[in-house]
């Protein structure tokens, strides 16, 4: 598969993965290895000092994957900038997945706060990867302020509802000069494949792998679907038409009967 370049990094896998919701750290690592992903997301939270610490970073660094901290939990641009600065120190990376969702029921990203935060973070030298609604205007605005990619949603986070935003994703992909990574809502390998067939540069998957009854097998299935989707996109999909179009000529057979 052709590689994907974002900022200073080159990826051979077009599958990015989240680390949430796995039943154990061991299973998470095994699934991530099976997915062949090279970029995995993490969150930051204030420590509960009375509880023991579960250090996720060590096994992930040991696997050789790149870490992408997110700003989840932030409700405003200022909170997101603070979260990004924390993440930069915690994980020693300038990469940040910018997500600001004040509403806990639908986790819809706030477009105004996201654009404001993106602009500030770009100025502070971050590689900004904003999670947004599938809004073509917003995606262009984010690109203009210097985001290195855009991450429009397929459907609400954790919903597994697939590419509900397909029409708008297609516009975003057609217009974008930066990589488009479809994030959220991808519930099945076929959704991931479709996103890549449409020309998305990558997908980010978490829940669909983590909550599967066999996360390792599901991760492998996602790896294959992303490869297939990208290959199909590069090969060029055949056009869709309403009328039938015979795959072989019927004429000579009919003539024999006359």
């Amino acid at each position, binding site marked *: 598969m052709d590689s994907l370049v974002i900022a200073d990094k080159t990826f051979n896998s077009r599958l990015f993965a989240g680390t949430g919701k796995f039943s154990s750290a061991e299973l998470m690592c095994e699934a991530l290895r099976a997915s062949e992903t090279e970029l995995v997301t993490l969150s930051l939270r204030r420590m509960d000092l009375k509880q023991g610490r579960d250090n*996720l970073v*060590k096994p992930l660094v040991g696997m050789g994957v790149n870490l992408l901290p997110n700003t989840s939990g932030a409700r405003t641009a200022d909170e997101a900038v*603070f979260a990004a600065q924390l993440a930069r120190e915690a*994980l020693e990376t300038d990469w940040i997945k910018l997500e600001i969702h004040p509403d806990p029921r639908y986790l819809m990203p706030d477009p105004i706060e996201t654009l404001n935060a993106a602009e500030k973070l770009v100025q502070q030298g971050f590689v900004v990867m904003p999670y947004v609604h599938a809004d073509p205007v917003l995606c262009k605005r984010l690109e203009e302020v210097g985001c290195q990619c855009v991450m429009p949603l397929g459907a609400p986070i954790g919903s597994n509802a697939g590419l509900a935003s397909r029409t708008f994703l297609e516009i975003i992909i057609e217009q974008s000069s930066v990589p488009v990574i479809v994030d959220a809502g991808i519930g099945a390998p076929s959704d991931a494949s479709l996103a890549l067939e449409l020309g998305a540069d990558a997908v980010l998957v978490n829940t669909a792998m983590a909550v599967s009854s066999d996360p390792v097998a599901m991760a492998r299935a996602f790896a294959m679907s992303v490869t297939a989707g990208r290959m199909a996109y590069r090969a060029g999909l055949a056009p869709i038409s309403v009328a039938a179009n015979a795959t072989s000529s019927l004429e000579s057979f009919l003539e024999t009967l006359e």
Partner: protein
Amino acid sequence: MISIKLNGELTQVSDGLLLEGLLAQLQIDSKGIALALNGLVVPRSQWTSRQLTDQDVVDIFQSIAGG
């Protein structure tokens, strides 16, 4: 001894304790950790030079699983 607010809890520590020393006292491995002092993120490079003073508000953050 001075009094600081550490992750929301009032705590007594020795005067002039470095941030690095605080982590060591708490037996926290610094990998994957971030620190904020009085609401501002402290760069890792300053953990060995920043001393705590009375009434400081310290917050320690860790990386957790997420999407």
